[in-house]
């Protein structure tokens, strides 16, 4: 079996070690004998996207996101079709916000999003920074997801969330929801990188991508996740001890 992962704008959407998610997906597939091709999708080297099994969008600085938006918006309709067709999309932080309709920045300017999904994000006072613990309803072994969030934007939507916030802020710090799930799209604010300490979530993505591609039920060979779970548990303990987080200073 094989998978094709598109890493969208790795040169621009490259904050907070999010490329680690690609490393985790690639290694966990390869360790099971699944061949993986990682394709870098950049402004200079446009690709078709149509043969993607997994599309990864990380977060970038405001300036970098501005630089790529006009390029990415050309692929808006195609992306929407792929999402409807069940291609796996993992979008983190700025990448997550891009999937929505618009973003209202700190000065009240409305910045257009890709409108792949029907939601919006609004900058509000104070940054939401810190370790975060989420409980998910996804059918995966461990029910907790850990990560680190750092965002000024608050996202509001009526989709199924990735999970319920146990500690931390999540989408907006108000409705206890973190992230979003729609078909095979996961949007989330979690860095860490996300998949490094949540191997069960990484496997969920690999599994879903393979099942769509090969149109059959697939059960992945289990891996020894001793180190990942150790790290997961350590940070979980830490989060539970830290108590309720405080909103950080605005920049």
């Amino acid at each position, binding site marked *: 079996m094989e998978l094709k992962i598109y890493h969208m704008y*790795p*040169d*621009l959407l*490259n*904050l*907070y*070690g*999010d*490329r*680690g998610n690609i*490393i*985790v997906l690639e*290694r966990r597939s390869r360790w099971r004998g699944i061949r993986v091709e990682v394709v870098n999708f*950049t*402004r*200079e080297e446009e690709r078709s996207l149509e043969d993607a099994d997994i599309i990864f969008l990380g977060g970038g*600085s*405001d*300036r*970098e996101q501005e*630089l790529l938006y006009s390029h990415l918006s050309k692929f808006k309709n195609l992306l929407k079709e792929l999402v409807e067709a069940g291609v796996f999309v993992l979008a983190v932080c700025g990448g997550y916000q891009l999937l929505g309709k618009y973003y209202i920045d700190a000065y009240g300017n409305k910045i257009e999003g890709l409108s792949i999904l029907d939601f919006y994000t609004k900058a509000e006072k104070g*940054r939401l*920074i*810190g*370790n975060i613990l989420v409980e998910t309803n996804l059918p995966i072994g461990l029910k907790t997801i850990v990560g*680190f969030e*750092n965002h*000024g934007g608050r996202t509001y939507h009526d989709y199924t969330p990735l999970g319920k916030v146990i500690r931390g802020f999540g989408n907006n710090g108000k409705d206890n929801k973190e992230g979003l799930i729609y078909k095979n799209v996961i949007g989330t604010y979690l*860095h*860490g*990188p996300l998949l*490094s*300490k949540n191997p069960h979530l990484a496997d969920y993505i690999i599994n879903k991508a393979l099942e769509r591609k090969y149109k059959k039920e697939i059960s992945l060979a289990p891996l020894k996740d001793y*180190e*990942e779970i*150790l*790290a997961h548990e*350590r*940070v979980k303990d*830490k989060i539970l001890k830290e108590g309720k987080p405080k909103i950080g200073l605005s*920049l």
Partner: protein
Amino acid sequence: MNLRRFRFYTALYAGKLVYYLMKILNLDATTFPGKVALNIYPDFLKEISSKIKTRILVTGTNGKTTTNNLINYVIKRKGYRVIGNLEGANLKSGIATSYVKNSGIFDFATFEVDEGIFPYVYEDLSPHYVVITNFFRDQLDRYGEIDITVNKILNCLKENTILVLNADDPFVARFSKLPNKKFFFGIGTKIREGVEEIKESIYCPICGRKLNYDFFNYSQLGKYSCKCGFKNPDYDFYISSAIFNKEWNTEIFEKGEKYNLTFKYPGVYNLYNVLSAYSLLRVLNFDPLEISKFISEFEFRLGRLEKFIYKGFERILVLVKNPAGYNQVLDTIKDDKENKVLLLILNDNIADGRDVSWIWDVDFEKIKDLGEIQKIVVSGTRGEDLLVRLKYAEVPLEKVHLERDLKKAIDYSISFPYKTYILPTYTALFRSRKILMRKVKNGA
């Protein structure tokens, strides 16, 4: 005595009292005494700036501590009265502490300043000279994004400040648009041969196009140009070749003249550090031969390739705090062909950056073949994260050992009959250093 002076001296002596108490208790007194002084008198830094004739600030992401120490050392060797925050405590409290423990009238001050708070310190100290080393992604969870940091510094600078700038960093080159008197330094050649993997493209700060690079020397530092005309500013001080053989041997060019220079510490990043210090000292009009002599005699302490000898083997302490610096240190370790043990320590306290995901931007894949590395020990409040990172870099896990307790981790890593490299993040540095020094002193 007027009220201002009264408050200043109250703050100063309260700070001194706290400083001596902390010293007696053997506590790390690099920031708290200054914090006390600033609490009593918030304009404390403004007041001390009137007691220092020439004020120099060093800022940027990497290399501040080394550059600042070099500058301070040469000025001191010249016989001037000079003060500085040499231990790397570079927030307001650290700068205030350096004055609290050593008050008086000075010819020079050399302070390194955290890039995130630079505008506030700049305002208080109104320096005559500012050195900017480079800007890399560092501890982003405190400051948001690199562009914001750069712009804040750019916007706060007043016209009469003389700038000494790294021409090889496109982020620093943005400062060339300022009307200030400016001096640029750089390395006009590729120093380390071999493949340089650069993960991120760098975009032109003027027009947003991708920059063309002739070569990279260290992260995004190198020779670059853009279709719109943006390129490395012309050098006032530069290096065109350098060889490392137990120490750096190089020549620095300036206005057609050239001066030999040697420096003990490896890594291209140290070449940049020495070049930035040299440039500033030349801008101060110090004699080039004297600068070179003093620089060659400079010995560094405090966890920047600081060497201890324990049981006949070198134990080398190197601070790591961001991917660019970490990759440089891994290169230096790989170049060292002796057998060795690595101790990697990752903490997630505020001063380290609470978000540890940056370790995924470090190319640990470089060391997956181990070479002369006999063992890798991981520790710190987030040692498990390092363990996972090494697993995914496909380092053989039977050679990796997790030890949560820092003291035990140090004991274990120096128990081998090999050289040890100890790589702590900021808050682990001082404790590691203390533990090591005690070991060395006791000898067993």
